[in-house]
């Protein structure tokens, strides 16, 4: 298995840099997720790795071998990678079995070997009864499994997945998320997975790279990204988050609506506007006045009962609206004055 | 001076003898090659070549009949007939020779001027079939043996007997200018038809271009080939034709079609259609055989009986029911003049008739 390395990778169309100076190392056997909204460059990055596009600047190496550079790009058919496309790209004029063994026939294996491998993968993906059907006759989930089988049977060094679950309905998506991770653990390929869905990323990835506007905003493990977002974009994108805008007081305090908030995270410069993120379920809300560090007075604007919890929208003195999730017990009416406690270790100061 | 061997008298005799022989020898050199009969060797050689390509403007059914008769007489030699209007035949041969393509063996054009052009361009093979040497009058064969008159006919006025009564029919070209014929005349075009080119030359020489200018005011229906006006008459599309082939009129009327000829008082233009073979013919022996056959009494009778043409061969008989050729007043033909003036005639005609 090889590792995949992107160095200063840039792709421009005209003057617009769709992928802007990306550097990333993907270790052997790891599953890396490129996560971001549409237009952030994640699919372009994937296609650069696959070899369908040539880079404007930078290089891509697979296991020390240079495969992409502005001067020369190895075509996809020579990279020993496999890819699952968003549309699955199953060939409608071939049966499921013919689709799956296509790659093996290209590698000129003998019929016996092909037969054995085919049966093995059909068993793994539970497609055996469907082997002679045509893709047009299958459901979405079945098609996705065929695409998976076709990609895995050739035992590639690198596996690329382009939003493979986005065409499935919600229940199937949940189930398939675990399936993808399970298969990855079994075969241990180096996998690059592109998605816009953060729950997919959180479930499947060893490493998440959050991308925005062609750049990687932050890369890290799922816990790191969630607990310690470094920028407003990442904070908003992963899990829902309140982002408070205040003014820096000193290295660890931010002035917000009259309260001096002690925060952790990025270094705060005195006098500069600073953003602080805090998750809605980390804020404690109480109708009774409280004293102490990081207490912010506010008014309840709206309240919704969700069964397991309550969803409050409160407004602080300076007009900032915050979302608060609490246990269902505490029922505070609209218009009431409340006091919020923002635990310092959960207030993350954000960069820039 | 009595003592010298060569006296003046001897010199005189000698020099005159030399001169005389010189004159005779040039005459001998420019004379046509000797008459060539059909020999078994020629037939064999022709069979080996297997086919002869004949570019002609002879009417298609007649051309195909001649081809079939030839093939019946000489099995093993096929005839490929390439028929189009004489001007197009000429244009095609010009195009082909300019590109070094030699596809044509024997050519027969209804524009005698063409043969002169080809002869000048050194494209023709001198070959004199036996019949030509023996029977053909001098004005109907080339002194150098390059071509001879395969067929002659006249371009005539004619009318549709269903539409026009005999008494009302025009008797001369001048009659055609009568306003009662406006919109009822069909005629062919010298730019496409060798026959009409020759006829137009003779008519403008004898009647002047003013005749054509007045004719243009009659709203004539313009067609291309000289074989077309008789067919239009038969269709009933027009009542009268101003020019066109006499032989087509015979062909139609003798099958019961409603057409009849008129021999204009001023004289009918005489058309001569020579046959020649090319030096660069791809099938030379077959070509010679075919040429020989063309001038034989058998073939010449065929062109009279089937084709309605006239023949120069004295052993042929005119078909009864047709005006004998000697009784027809014709205009005089002059292929050399046609050759010189052909471009000018086409331009002038196009200007008058607008096409």
């Amino acid at each position: 298995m090889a590792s995949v390395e992107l160095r200063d990778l840039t792709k421009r169309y005209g003057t617009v840099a769709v992928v802007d100076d990306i550097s990333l190392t993907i270790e052997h056997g790891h599953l890396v997720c490129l996560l971001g909204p549409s237009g952030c460059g994640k699919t372009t990055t994937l296609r650069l790795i696959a070899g369908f596009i040539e880079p404007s600047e930078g290089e891509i190496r697979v296991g020390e071998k240079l495969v992409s550079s502005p001067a020369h790009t190895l075509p996809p058919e020579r990279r020993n990678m496999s890819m699952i496309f968003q549309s699955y790209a199953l060939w409608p004029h071939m049966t499921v079995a013919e689709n799956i063994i296509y790659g093996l026939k290209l590698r000129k294996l003998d019929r016996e070997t092909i037969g054995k491998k085919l049966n093995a993968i059909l068993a793994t993906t539970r497609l055996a009864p469907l082997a002679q059907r045509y893709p047009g006759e299958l459901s979405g989930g079945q098609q996705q499994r065929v695409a998976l089988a076709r990609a895995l049977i050739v035992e590639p060094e690198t596996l690329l997945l382009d939003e493979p679950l986005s065409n499935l309905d919600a229940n199937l998506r949940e189930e398939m998320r675990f399936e993808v991770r399970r298969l990855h653990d079994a075969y241990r390929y180096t996998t690059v997975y592109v998605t816009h869905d953060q729950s997919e990323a959180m479930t499947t990835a060893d490493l998440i790279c959050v991308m925005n506007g062609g750049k990687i905003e932050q890369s890290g493990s799922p816990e790191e990204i969630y607990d310690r977002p470094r920028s407003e974009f990442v904070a908003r994108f992963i899990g829902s988050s309140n982002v408070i805008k205040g003014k820096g007081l000193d290295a660890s305090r931010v002035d917000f609506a009259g309260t001096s908030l002690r925060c952790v995270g990025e270094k705060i410069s005195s006098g500069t506007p600073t953003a602080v993120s805090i998750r809605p379920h980390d804020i404690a809300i109480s109708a009774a006045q409280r004293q102490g560090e990081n207490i912010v007075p506010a008014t309840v604007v709206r309240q919704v009962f969700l069964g397991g919890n309550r969803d409050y929208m409160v407004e602080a003195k300076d007009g900032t609206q915050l979302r608060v999730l609490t246990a269902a017990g505490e029922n505070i009416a609209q218009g009431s004055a409340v006091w919020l406690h923002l635990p310092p270790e959960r207030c993350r100061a954000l960069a820039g | 001076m009595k003592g010298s061997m060569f006296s003046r008298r001897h010199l005189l005799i000698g020099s005159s003898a030399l001169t005389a022989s010189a004159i005779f020898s040039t005459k001998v050199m420019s004379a046509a090659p000797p008459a060539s009969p059909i020999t078994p060797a020629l037939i064999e050689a022709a069979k080996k070549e297997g086919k002869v390509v004949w570019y002609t403007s002879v009417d298609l059914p007649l051309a195909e009949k001649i081809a079939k008769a030839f093939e019946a007489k000489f099995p093993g030699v096929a005839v490929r007939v390439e028929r189009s209007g004489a001007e197009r035949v000429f244009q095609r041969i010009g195009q082909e020779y300019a590109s070094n393509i030699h596809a044509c063996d024997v050519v027969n054009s209804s524009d005698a001027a063409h043969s002169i052009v080809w002869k000048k361009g050194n494209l023709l093979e001198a070959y004199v079939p036996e019949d030509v040497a023996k029977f053909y009058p001098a004005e109907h064969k080339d002194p150098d043996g390059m071509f001879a008159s395969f067929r002659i006919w006249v371009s005539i006025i004619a009318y549709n007997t269903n539409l026009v009564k005999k008494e009302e029919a025009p008797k001369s070209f001048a009659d055609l200018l009568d306003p009662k014929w406006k919109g009822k005349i069909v005629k062919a075009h010298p730019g496409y038809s060798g026959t009409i080119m020759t006829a137009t030359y003779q008519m403008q020489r004898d009647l002047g271009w003013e005749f054509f200018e007045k004719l243009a005011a009659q709203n004539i229906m313009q067609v291309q080939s000289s074989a077309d006006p008789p067919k239009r008459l038969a269709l009933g599309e027009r009542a009268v034709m101003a020019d066109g082939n006499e032989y087509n009129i015979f062909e139609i009327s003798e099958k019961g079609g409603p057409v009849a000829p008129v021999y204009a008082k001023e004289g009918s233009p005489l058309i001569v259609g020579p046959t020649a073979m090319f030096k660069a013919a791809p099938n030379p022996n077959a070509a010679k055989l075919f040429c020989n056959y063309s001038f034989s009494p058998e073939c010449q009778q065929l062109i009279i009986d089937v084709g309605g043409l006239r023949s120069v061969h004295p052993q042929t008989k005119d078909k009864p029911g047709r005006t004998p050729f000697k009784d027809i007043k014709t205009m005089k033909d002059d292929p050399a003049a046609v050759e010189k003036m052909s471009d000018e005639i086409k331009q002038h005609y196009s200007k008058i008739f607008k096409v």
Partner: protein
Amino acid sequence: MTLAIPAAPAPRTFGIDVSKPVLYGVAAVLVILIVLPLSWLFVYSLTDGKGSLTLANFYRLFTESAFREPLITTFIIATSSAFICCAVAAPMGWLVARTDLPFGSMIRALVTASFVTPPFLGAIAWEVLAAPNSGLLNKIFRSLTGAEQDQHLFNIYTLPGIIFVISCYTFPYVFVLVANSLDRTPGELEDASSILGGGRWYTARRITIPLVLPALLAGALVAFLQAMTLFGSPAILALPAGFHTMTTKIWSLFQYPPKPELAAAASLPLLVLTVILLRAEHMILGRRGYSVVGGKYGAPRLIPLYRMRWVAFVLCMLVLMLPVFLPYAALLNAAFSPVATTFLTWHNATLHNIQFVLFDLSAASLALKNTVILGTATATIGTVIAVVIAYVTARQAVAGWRVLGFLATAPIAIPGIVLGVGLFLSYTRPPFVLYGTLWILLIAFVTIALPSAYQQLQAAFRTIHPELEDASRILGATRLRSLWEITAPLLRTGVIATWCFIFVGVMRELSAAIILFTSETKVISVLIYDLNESGDLGAIAVIGIGMLLITFAVVTAVNRIPGFGTVRFRT
């Protein structure tokens, strides 16, 4: 579940990738096909007979009335034709695509039949029908009304007559464009209007018609171009009518002595005008062109015509009489009748014409052989080139793909007779003297067929998702291999349709063939023209009918070859 951890990956073998050389090779062929004749055309138009540079040719072109009048005539014919075609084809297209007109598919098939008929054959048939004195229709008119012998209802040998015949065989282009555009307009767009209260006529006026206007304009332009560049019909009808069009004038410049410089100069205005009009069409249609719009739109709701249904049907059939029923009847009449314009009866029916063509006409079998050989070769080569180029432009597979796409459509701008002249000038001189061989005709026909073949295949390519080929490539197949294994089978119906289209086009091509043929390389269209020159209408009718039968037979047969016909996948 136990899972085997795979051993070392299977070995990969890489074939030599010939994709790039093949693609560049085809591009080079294309450039030669098109650039060469055009350059010679320009060169000749700017030289005089002796080879020195001059503008005299153009000067003559615009000052001499012998050239100016054909220009004006051609313009009048083209404009009138385009107008008539739109006025007739647009309502018909709307009726077929948008209403519950009975037998709509039969009407579409009949329009296709009129498209397959060569315009010159139609012109000859209309001669038989509408010649002022001998025409069948005029004879009927006279016998019905007792009119005088020289009175007639129709005279085909007039400017309106020519415009009529040209319109008959140009209107299918407009019809197809309008009907297709209406077929593809989503039903929801009209539903939205009716939900808001628009009645069906109001909707038709405010929604449907504006949507289809671009296709109509494009159709008008195509009709104009077709009418402007036709050679066969004017050649047959204009001379008896007493005038020239630009195409017949160019043709006449090839008579002896040939004036290729003037012919070249006369060709250029046609070329320039065509380019301008095509740019205009492109700007109007934008990039939509003929592509199939993907998506899950519903089929349009048909507008019910109630009692007008049958009236509309009768009207459509009346229109279709003109290019199809009447001319075909006239041809049948001419084929079996002793004289073409005599009505066929049981008594006078004769097989003489058929006998003549089959046994006596020695040029017929050669012409037939040449036509079938050229038709098959042109269709095959043209389809292959068009597939490769459509692939290159649809997938942007090589640098400069935009230029290739432009070159593939460029020949539309070259009228057939102009191309004939250009090819004649290019290939009658060393080093490539192809004149007199079938090769020069092959080059001409492929060049003429390429643009529509390319556009059809481009549209077919757009229905194939590029990821289908990407999936093949990532598994190890080269571009060409992917094209062969994945794309080509999916294109099957499109490829077959294109092949047939080109074959039919070759059978009816006259304008380039008339300049490039020699006696050895004559084709059927030229043979018919020759026969018309000498007035052999019976033989023409027999050959024409034979031609139509062959065309229909080939198209049907090709669609039946196992594996070629219906494609086995389901989508």
